[in-house]
């Protein structure tokens, strides 16, 4: 009859992201003596050059071996007209040389003759005098050092100067870096070789060969992810020219939004085809991310996160619906919550089957790769950068919401009183109550008092209520604060050719938007890369994070399909409280003390509650990762990747004795009140004495509930990569990999009764508490474990002809234990074929200048995902029998799921066609992808004959098709020396339809805010009870009910859903973003607009059959039906009307009717950022390299949303618990580089 559905949401761990541009240190530290030497060299060189400056116009040609100098000199005289005299014995005129001169100048001839000898020559009046070199002191110095000073400029392939490039004399510690103009000067030994290195570029070796000016151009290195022209799949790095899939790369700097801590939220509006829905804004809760829409009906639809090549496992599995429930476990839902956003080098979003093919059977929902920063190659000196973010949130205000003020509210209560809803006898002992209950309680005589609190006269009563009528409490002001969130992040990067180290640490402290929450987080990350020799290199990463978070205490949400309500006992969510609590209630009484009203028969004050009923969450996440790269041959490498991750989280729900819940467990017993005692459902009736009064199981103390989750995960991957270019035209690449994943999850829960928080922490355990839970078959503690084991083998081959035509094929074979102990179901092969054509490489494209790049891509392949079912073999669970007497309970084993021989993975065939075009030397880039996906073997709950013993089976019985198109247009609209304007538009459109689903949902399953699946509709469609009109006499809403009749009675558990009205999909069909960045000299300004459209949103449920004096009503109640007036807002029914409803809940049904739906489309000014880079002249005086200030505002303005929403956020599900909407925030960000 009543079934609970325990739903969970995740809170968002917001990752704080800072990025400081790191500049190289210019070469200014050379010791002084050496500097002098260099100066001397320079002077000397110029004097030598002066000598040879007297030019010889005549040329000499002589080709003869073993010719004597005498003959040479004669020829010089004959051809050039110079006499040559020898004034030394060092060489004789008979000395023989090999002459090979053709139109050579006399200098060249002389240089050849004197080469390697300690001689020089002078030219005077057509006479060349050869004489010994005069050895000056300078000469001796030069000889001693034998050094050459070389200067030059380093540029990239576009011709832009490259600062920070390491220039090194090969085989010596001598190294410097280029300055901000890309210039360098280095003194090296004669015959040295210079190496030019920079992260992301191919290291260039240039032999000096006597040159003094060496300008070089560096090329990007395909093996290092830096440039957008490289696509990383997490397994391989592939040049974009050769890549055949659909992927988007976005650098950490570009994605960054100061003040937004969650890495996943940074992708919002920036990547075509990726939708990010902020269903909750609480720290730690993940947003709802979809890459190309939903692919599964019951399974995960979230993308796979891969950090530095390793799949990031979720600590707790949070299902699609759980995301929006507000349950405490959602705070652990964001798998990327432990990442410091400052550490992120880049994101890579793999979208189609080709891009994700190497992830095989886990890739159905797309893959998001995160690459973290490495130490940069330099001269080994540290680059230090600091970022500080200081954010403040705006309090929500009633201006944005449609809630009655206290005066109007009180007048509604007055009507309710007239209609008989607030009678003394009903209200005085009611479980929950506001001002009226307080009034009636005050009519009583207090113990020993001779006067009542309030005289029972109309005047006295009116004057009592008067205070509350004018109270107009601003709950937002009481419960929210403009608090400070600060984030400090420090990173040090250092590196030489052979070893690079990156270290970072960050500290985040959020005092909380509300008075009930706060967060502290530390992260640490060390990454080192070392090269042992040309063949062998390895790297190690150690990263960890610690989080301590406080949230308002909450219990899981329950759904009541009978009345059509979601309920959550003892919910303290400040946002829902402010929206749902009457403004007539006052937090403080006349004397400034906390004022209590009644909830669950016990005193309640939200401020007291948020102080005494808290949820404390702690999280420790540690990862150690290692990689080894071995070059077996020049074009053949072996890679090893291994990682170990350990996560420990604990939730402590502390319900102190001063809070409402423990007092509710005692209400009616202490103090004694028989009426309450019989009505209080938290009291315990002893089955051995069922006729006695119920007793309290919690006579002293409060409750202490814990919920701990652990995760242990190992990951190992071995891969071989071979590539070869034949005849400079045929590029062949083969890749094979084998991987293994091992994950153990563990959850433990415990309910501690009678913990005395204020008496030294000693539990007072009433045995009845345990007895009650055992008799009620409610386990007061539990422990669960889950084991995931995976192995996979993958191979991929690609061939490219002349950079024009590419063909790629992948095959992967996955094995998992998740389906249960069946040999057949366990393994799944997936495959993919793709190709691309670089049209711009064709001859006919060479002549034009408009299109600089044009690639057409195509993909077809199979990807898969594990569904939620695990019963490829029989699943038995143990439990105890559900019987009332302890003496009759026995242990039992029950069939949880029958064996299903047909169980398999959820699969998807995807066809993708893509087009990349760049115009005007890559200034304007357009990418468009269109795809069609056919999901099949999707897991769904289906009804069967029941004859096998399982009426509802979870099996592969659903198919879904989806189609979409997505694209981005990005470019530099203006690019000048001092100013520029960059712009990017992304959009994605995805429409899915379930083509086969044999489920048989009830009305209640389909009308909730999350919608439900039905054949012929999207994976989650929003359905409504078809509202018709208000009853002309009573103002009670009427609908087309499950029988197709006009009625006010809708049976929500009916499975006849054909009379429901389909509103639209729950997930947006269309979404995207518009990003603009301007820069002028040292100033930058960026704006991000996001938009989404095509979905429907369920308005918050506000109507009920009956209201209490606690309810807050929206202003639309002012227009409610009163007497046959022609309005569309239902009446407040009187008790007589309700009793005539025969147990129907038309008002609850109205909440889920077609009248309570709004369009979900919106345009939001997501982020505005204004920055200033301090001029380097000024800051260098205080020893800084760089410094910048940014002022950022996030979620500033909801530009457009359906008016029917009346302030309700179209993205946010107001589900209470720990869920809070995303706040409007302002951040001051300071970045400093040392």
């Amino acid at each position, binding site marked *: 009859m009543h079934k609970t559905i325990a739903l969970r949401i995740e809170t968002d761990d917001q990752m704080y992201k800072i990025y400081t541009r790191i500049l190289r240190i210019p070469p200014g530290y050379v010791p002084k003596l050496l500097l002098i030497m260099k100066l001397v060299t320079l002077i000397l060189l110029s004097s030598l050059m002066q000598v040879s400056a007297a030019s010889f116009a005549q040329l000499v040609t002589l080709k003869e071996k073993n010719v004597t100098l005498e003959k040479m000199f004669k020829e010089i005289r004959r051809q050039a007209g110079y006499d040559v005299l020898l004034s030394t014995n060092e060489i004789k005129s008979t000395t023989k040389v090999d002459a090979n001169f053709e139109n050579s100048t006399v200098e060249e001839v002389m240089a050849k003759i004197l080469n390697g000898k300690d001689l020089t020559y002078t030219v005077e009046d057509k006479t060349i005098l050869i004489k010994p070199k005069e050895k000056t002191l300078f000469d001796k110095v030069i000889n001693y050092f034998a050094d050459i000073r070389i200067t030059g400029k380093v540029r990239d392939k576009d011709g832009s100067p490259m600062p920070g490039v390491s220039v090194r004399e090969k085989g010596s510690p001598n190294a410097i870096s280029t300055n901000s103009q890309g210039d360098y000067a280095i003194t090296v030994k004669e015959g040295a070789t210079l190496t030019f290195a920079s992260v992301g570029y191919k290291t260039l070796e240039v032999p000096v060969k006597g040159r003094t000016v060496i300008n070089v151009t560096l090329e990007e290195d395909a093996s290092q992810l830096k440039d957008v022209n490289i696509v990383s799949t997490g397994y391989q790095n592939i040049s974009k020219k050769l890549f055949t899939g659909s992927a988007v790369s976005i650098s950490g700097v570009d994605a960054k939004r100061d003040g937004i801590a969650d890495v996943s939220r940074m992708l919002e509006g920036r990547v075509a085809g990726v939708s990010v829905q902020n269903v909750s804004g609480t720290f730690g809760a993940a947003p709802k991310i979809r890459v190309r829409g939903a692919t599964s009906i019951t399974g995960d639809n979230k993308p796979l996160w891969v950090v530095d090549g390793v799949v990031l496992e979720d600590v707790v599995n949070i299902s699609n619906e759980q995301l929006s429930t507000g349950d405490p476990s959602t705070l652990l839902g964001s798998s990327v919550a432990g990442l410091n956003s400052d550490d992120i080098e880049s994101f890579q979003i793999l979208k189609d089957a080709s891009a994700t093919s190497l992830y095989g059977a886990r890739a159905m929902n797309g893959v998001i790769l995160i690459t973290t920063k490495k130490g940069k190659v330099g001269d080994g000196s540290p680059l230090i950068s600091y970022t500080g973010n200081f954010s403040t949130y705006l309090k929500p205000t009633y201006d944005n919401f449609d809630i009655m003020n206290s005066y109007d509210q009180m007048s509604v209560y007055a009507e309710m009183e007239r209609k008989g809803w607030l009678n003394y006898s009903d209200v005085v002992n009611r479980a929950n109550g506001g001002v009226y209950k307080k009034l009636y309680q005050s009519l009583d005589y207090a113990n020993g008092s001779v006067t009542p609190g309030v005289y029972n006269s109309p005047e006295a009563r009116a004057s009592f209520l008067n205070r509350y009528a004018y109270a107009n409490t601003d709950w937002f002001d009481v419960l929210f604060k403009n608090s400070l969130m600060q984030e400090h992040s420090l990173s040090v990067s250092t590196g030489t050719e052979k070893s690079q180290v990156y270290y970072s640490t960050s500290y985040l402290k959020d005092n909380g938007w509300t008075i009930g929450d706060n967060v502290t987080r530390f992260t640490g990350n060390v990454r080192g890369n070392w090269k042992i020799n040309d063949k062998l290199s390895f790297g190690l990463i150690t990263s960890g994070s610690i989080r301590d978070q406080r949230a308002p205490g909450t219990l899981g949400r329950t759904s009541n399909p009978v009345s059509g309500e979601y309920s959550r006992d003892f919910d303290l969510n400040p946002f829902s409280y402010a929206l749902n609590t009457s403004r007539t209630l006052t937090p403080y009484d006349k004397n400034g003390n906390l004022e209590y009203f009644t909830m669950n028969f016990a005193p309640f004050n939200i401020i007291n509650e948020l102080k005494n009923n808290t949820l404390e969450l702690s999280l420790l996440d540690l990862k150690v990762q290692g990689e080894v790269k071995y070059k077996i041959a020049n074009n053949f490498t072996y890679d090893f990747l291994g990682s170990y991750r350990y996560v420990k989280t604990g939730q402590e729900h502390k319900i102190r004795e001063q809070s409402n819940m423990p007092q509710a467990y005692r209400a009616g017993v202490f103090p004694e009140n028989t009426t309450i005692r019989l009505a209080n459902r938290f009291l315990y009736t002893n089955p051995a004495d069922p*006729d006695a009064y119920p007793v309290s199981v919690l006579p002293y103390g409060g409750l202490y509930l814990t919920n701990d989750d652990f995760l242990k995960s190992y990951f190992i991957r071995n891969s071989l990569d071979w590539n070869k270019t034949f005849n400079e035209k045929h590029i062949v690449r083969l890749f094979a990999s084998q991987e293994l994943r091992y994950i153990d999850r563990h959850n433990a829960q415990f309910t501690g009764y009678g913990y005395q928080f204020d008496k030294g922490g000693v539990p007072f355990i009433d045995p009845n508490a345990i007895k009650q839970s055992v008799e009620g078959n409610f386990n007061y503690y539990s422990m669960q474990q889950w084991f995931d084991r995976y192995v996979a083998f993958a191979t991929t081959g690609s061939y490219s002809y002349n950079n024009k035509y590419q063909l790629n094929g992948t095959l992967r074979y996955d094995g998992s234990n998740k389906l249960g102990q069946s040999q057949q179901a366990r393994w799944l092969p997936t495959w993919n074929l793709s190709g691309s054509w670089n049209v711009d490489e064709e001859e006919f494209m060479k002549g034009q200048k408009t299109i600089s790049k044009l690639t057409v891509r195509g993909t077809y392949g199979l990807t898969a995902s594990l569904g939620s079912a695990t019963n490829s073999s029989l699943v038995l669970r143990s439990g105890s029998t559900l019987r009332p007497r302890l003496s009759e309970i026995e242990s039992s084993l029950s*069939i949880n799921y029958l064996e*299903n*021989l047909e169980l398999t993975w959820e699969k998807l065939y995807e066809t993708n066609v893509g087009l990349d075009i760049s115009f005007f030397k890559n200034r304007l880039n357009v990418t468009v992808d269109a795809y069609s996906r056919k999901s099949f073997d999707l897991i769904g709950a289906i009804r069967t*004959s029941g004859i096998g013993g399982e009426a509802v089976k979870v099996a592969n019985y659903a198919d879904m098709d989806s189609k979409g198109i997505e694209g981005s247009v990005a470019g530099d609209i203006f690019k000048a020396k001092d100013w520029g304007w960059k712009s990017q538009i992304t959009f994605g459109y995805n429409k899915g339809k379930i083509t086969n689903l044999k489920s048989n949902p009830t009305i209640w399953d389909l009308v909730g805010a999350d919608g439900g699946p039905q054949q012929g509709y999207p994976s989650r469609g929003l359905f409504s009870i078809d509202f018709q009109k208000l009853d002309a006499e009573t103002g009670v809403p009427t609908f087309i009910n499950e029988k197709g009749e006009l009625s006010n009675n809708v049976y929500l558990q009916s499975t006849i859903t054909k009379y429901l009205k389909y509103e639209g999909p729950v997930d947006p069909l269309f979404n995207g973003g518009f990003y603009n960045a301007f820069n002028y000299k040292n100033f930058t300004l960026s704006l991000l607009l996001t938009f989404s459209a095509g979905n429907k949103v369920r308005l918050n449920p506000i109507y009920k059959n009956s209201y209490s004096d606690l309810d807050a009503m929206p202003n639309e109640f002012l227009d409610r039906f009163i007497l046959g007036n022609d309005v569309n807002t239902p009446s407040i029914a009187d008790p007589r009307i309700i009793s005539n409803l*025969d147990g129907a809940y038309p008002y609850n049904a109205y909440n889920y009717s077609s009248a309570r739906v709004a369009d979900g489309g919106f345009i939001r000014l997501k982020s505005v950022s204004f920055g200033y880079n301090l001029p380097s002249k000024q800051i260098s005086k205080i020893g800084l390299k760089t410094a910048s200030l940014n002022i950022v505002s996030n979620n500033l303005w909801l530009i457009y949303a359906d008016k029917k929403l009346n302030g309700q956020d179209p993205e946010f599900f107001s589900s209470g618990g720990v869920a809070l909407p995303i706040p409007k925030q302002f951040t001051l960000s300071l970045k400093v580089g040392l």
Partner: protein
Amino acid sequence: MKKKILYITIAISTLSFTGCKKYLEQSPDLRATLDSPDKVSELLVTAYPHGNYITFCEAMSDNAEDKGLAAGGGEAENRDPWYFNDVKSREIDSPDNYWNECYKAIAAANQALETISSVSNPEAYTAQKGEALIARAYSHFMLVTLFSKIYNVNTASTDPGIPYVTQPERVVYKKYERKTVAYVYQQIQNDLTQGLLLINDSKYTIPKYHFTKSAAHAFAARFFLFKKDYAKVVEHANLVFAGGNILPNLRDYVAPSSRSMEYAKRQAYYTAASNPANILLAEAGSAWGRSYPFYRYGLTFNLVYKTIWGTNVSGGSWAYQLYGRDLSLNIPKFPEHFVLTSQNGNIGDPYNMIPLFSAEEVLFNRAEANAYLGNYSASLKDLNDFGSKRFIVSDANPVYDAGTHAITEAKINTFYKPFNLQDGLIQTILDFKRVDFMFEGQRWFDILRYNIPVTHATADLKSKFILGPNDPRRVVQIPAEAELAGIERNPR
């Protein structure tokens, strides 16, 4: 070099493939394995239907009258069967739910039997095999009784039965056949007789919730009664209690100790394992206990005067104590066991303990069989044993007076004016059963067996709904989804 690498690669992949098998054997969660007699016993704890047939059986019977609009609109589980309509609900207390729960119990029994047939030491599992066979027979028996035509020796071999399942289901949609009522009865009899030989009471932790020898005999007595094999009914009924002595095990409504019980305690004792009258109990997910006093179609004062406050053959007054008001008349029988699903609130699943077999039923079955066998005195003795625990002079003088209350041939003849004594005895038994099993659904089985017509009139007496002797609606409709398994539904 290249060859070397190839060999190494092949070696590594072969090794890892063979290693994988073991690696992937790990079960994904903490699930149980069925590897010992104890565990098979634990599985058999779930081989009893955890659904409740009372709600719809009672509503279809003549034990339910319309209380009128004042009692509310009526829930589908109560309203639809009262109107002899197919129940438009598959929640607890619906026929669909009972169907599913019976087959779920059968699946547990079949799983146990399959495990037993595959172990190397089946002799260690004898008792478990016995229990599984009888449990399987019981669920099928209840299904064939409700979802097929009642056993009629002349038509049983053509009347469609219900699928008799003997193998665990391994595919999502398996096809089944209904076969015939006769076939199903034959299967039940096979399982029952085979199981009876194997049962061992000492293997049970909580015997009252399992087919002990006596429970199995009680089931056999009912089975053969339905099959009209009366000698066997007597034989098995005599084996239920030591020496065939049923009297000490009957519920006592006369003793002061029972009359003085308070409501909740009385209610709790009715379904307690410690109550000797309960031979077999089963827990069932059901809202019956909380709802039956309040259901719109239930016990009215009109019906009270026809039954427990009406005249009877003994001349005494029924000792039952009636509670409630005119819209909530009830005799306390089913306390609710409410299983909370979380610390949160009062939402959970309601459970009732249902007495599947009781001493009273055994007594009535023996009395009925003896009546047909011509052992009238034995039959009368049983009825008088029963009467001694049920009849009192008056509420003011709550004692049984054997002298005035004894049921005799003469009294039967006067009261019923029957065709013969046998007929009179049967009428007496049916009337007693109707009253004694009020709120327990058993009346419906007698209505089926004796083709008794049922008339339901609305409270305003404007409409009447009559269920004639051969009305197809006597056979409860099979769930619509059963068509997926190739099962044709019952005619309407």
